[in-house]
């Protein structure tokens, strides 16, 4: 450990690895993601699945800013995912043909909701914080279920589809492959923003909040303001993911607001490793693939997913990335 540690650059907080190794891994990741439509079908996968992995990874990375880096256990982030999805869907169904505008509006709606509601939740800590976030999430769920005329109720929201993006000089069709690249761009932008924040003074405070709120209070900081900021940022990122999810299926439903989705996002973070910047990407990769594969080969897919929850929580609390990191250290 020590030989490695001496090489650590001070400004590379979230990933405690030598910079050259980091860069190498990052380039590999980028190349792998860029070439998905080429190699994925060869392995029996399909492009929409890759889009889904990235969407859930983005959502989980957004949530992980709050969960893994600020230490706030929100069990209600499905609300912002769903609001992003509904915002985008409703825009495309009723008001605009611009996919990008719809995504922007969806992201704003979800993000602003998190910005407004975060301050309520951050008044409490611990399990109470989780409970308030669940309550808020369930409120949106039941509003979506009951407000039939606007949201489509239990049936979900249909009647919209992603529209080609017209740029001066060219048009992006947003069929399966080009949509994947749209998702990839959003994912890249989202993770770049998160990375920048985590390496900024603000991000340093987030991590410090996770570690010791009392210390920060006695450094003269109002901790709840910072948690609310983390909550809001995380809400925007999750809403962006939700917005893309609506476009992926050209559909959204109250399921996207339900606490079960919040649970799935949390387990994605835990699976991949909450303390690691790329952990949620790994977690989403594992979770989405397992869910996709298992539910097709056995009727008892719920047991398998349930076991994934239980076993990973008991045996791999640090997640896949945490596991590898620990091993490489020892």
């Amino acid at each position, binding site marked *: 450990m020590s030989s490695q*540690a001496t090489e650590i650059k*001070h400004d590379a907080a979230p990933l405690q690895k030598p910079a050259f190794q980091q860069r190498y891994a990052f380039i590999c990741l980028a190349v792998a993601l860029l070439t998905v439509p080429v190699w994925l079908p060869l392995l029996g996968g399909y492009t929409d699945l890759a889009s889904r992995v990235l969407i859930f990874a983005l959502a989980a990375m957004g949530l992980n800013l709050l969960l893994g880096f600020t230490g706030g256990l929100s069990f209600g982030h499905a609300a912002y995912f769903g609001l992003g999805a509904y915002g985008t869907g409703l825009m495309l169904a009723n008001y605009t043909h611009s996919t990008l505008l719809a995504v922007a509006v969806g992201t704003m709606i979800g993000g602003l909701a998190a910005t407004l509601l975060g301050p309520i939740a951050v008044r409490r800590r611990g399990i109470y914080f989780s409970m308030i976030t669940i309550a808020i999430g369930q409120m949106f769920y039941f509003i979506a279920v009951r407000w039939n005329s606007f949201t489509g109720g239990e049936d979900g929201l249909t009647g919209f589809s992603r529209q080609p993006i017209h740029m001066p000089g060219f048009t992006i069709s947003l069929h399966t492959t080009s949509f994947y690249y749209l998702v990839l761009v959003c994912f890249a932008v989202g993770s770049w923003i998160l990375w920048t924040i985590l390496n900024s003074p603000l991000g340093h*405070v987030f*991590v*410090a909040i*996770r*570690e010791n709120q*009392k210390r920060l209070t*006695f*450094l003269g900081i109002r901790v709840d303001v910072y948690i609310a900021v983390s909550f809001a940022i995380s809400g925007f990122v999750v809403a962006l993911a939700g917005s893309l999810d609506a476009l992926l299926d050209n559909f959204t439903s109250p399921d996207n607001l339900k606490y079960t989705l919040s649970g799935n996002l949390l387990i994605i973070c835990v699976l991949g490793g909450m303390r690691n910047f790329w952990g949620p990407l790994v977690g989403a990769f594992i979770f989405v693939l397992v869910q996709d594969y298992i539910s097709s080969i056995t009727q008892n897919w719920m047991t398998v997913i349930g076991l994934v929850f239980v076993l990973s929580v008991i045996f791999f609390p640090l997640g896949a990335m945490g596991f590898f990191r620990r091993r490489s250290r020892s």
Partner: protein
Amino acid sequence: MSLLTLQNVSRRFGALTALNNISLTVEPGELRAVIGPNGAGKTTLFNLISGFFPPSDGSIMFDGEPIMAVNPAILVKKGIIRTFQITEIFLDLTVYENIRVAVEVAMGISLRPWINAATRAKVNARVEELMEIVKISHKADRVAGEMSHGDQRVVEVGIALSRHPKLLLLDEPTAGMGDEETNHMTDLIRSLNKTQNITILFIEHDMNIVFGVADRITVLDNGTMLAEGTAKEIADNPRVQAAYLGQAA
């Protein structure tokens, strides 16, 4: 003008009186020890001064202003910084990161979601400076939670210094340390007081340190003030000897 003045301060918890009618003053530049047996009210005194909770009676003045109902965050900005009996640092972060976040908070840039090269350089310089002052630079990249108790204490002092304290409250800075660590901490306390010119109020059980370092000593017993004076005065005080030193010996 005195830096800190307590007048007739009491603090009660329900039926229990933790502090009763305490008056004391601390002059700028002073290095003051607070001693007393367990349950004497030392930590309660620190909690009152640092704004953890308000006094039940009496007044507390800092720098000429009353600070009885002021919350800790504001007091920190006024220059009252404390450490805790149980070390309060960021265990999963490196020493460097521990102090960096404190520096960024102190510089008032902690709400910035990005940082430019110039600011980063300024932050770095200040962190390096603080690590030099507390003599922990050689362990900058160690994860705090994996270090010895003494080193963690030192980190905590480094964090506290980031805010340019006028009054530094140290709650049992050497508790649980070995000899070498204790010496290091003692030297640090002395040098902070003498070279950095920081007024220090510290709670301590180790009489060698108390008598070797402190300019003046305040003795608490059972919530009341038993005595106050220089090391020699306290050592010679028969009431202190009876109530406290006698016991200890």
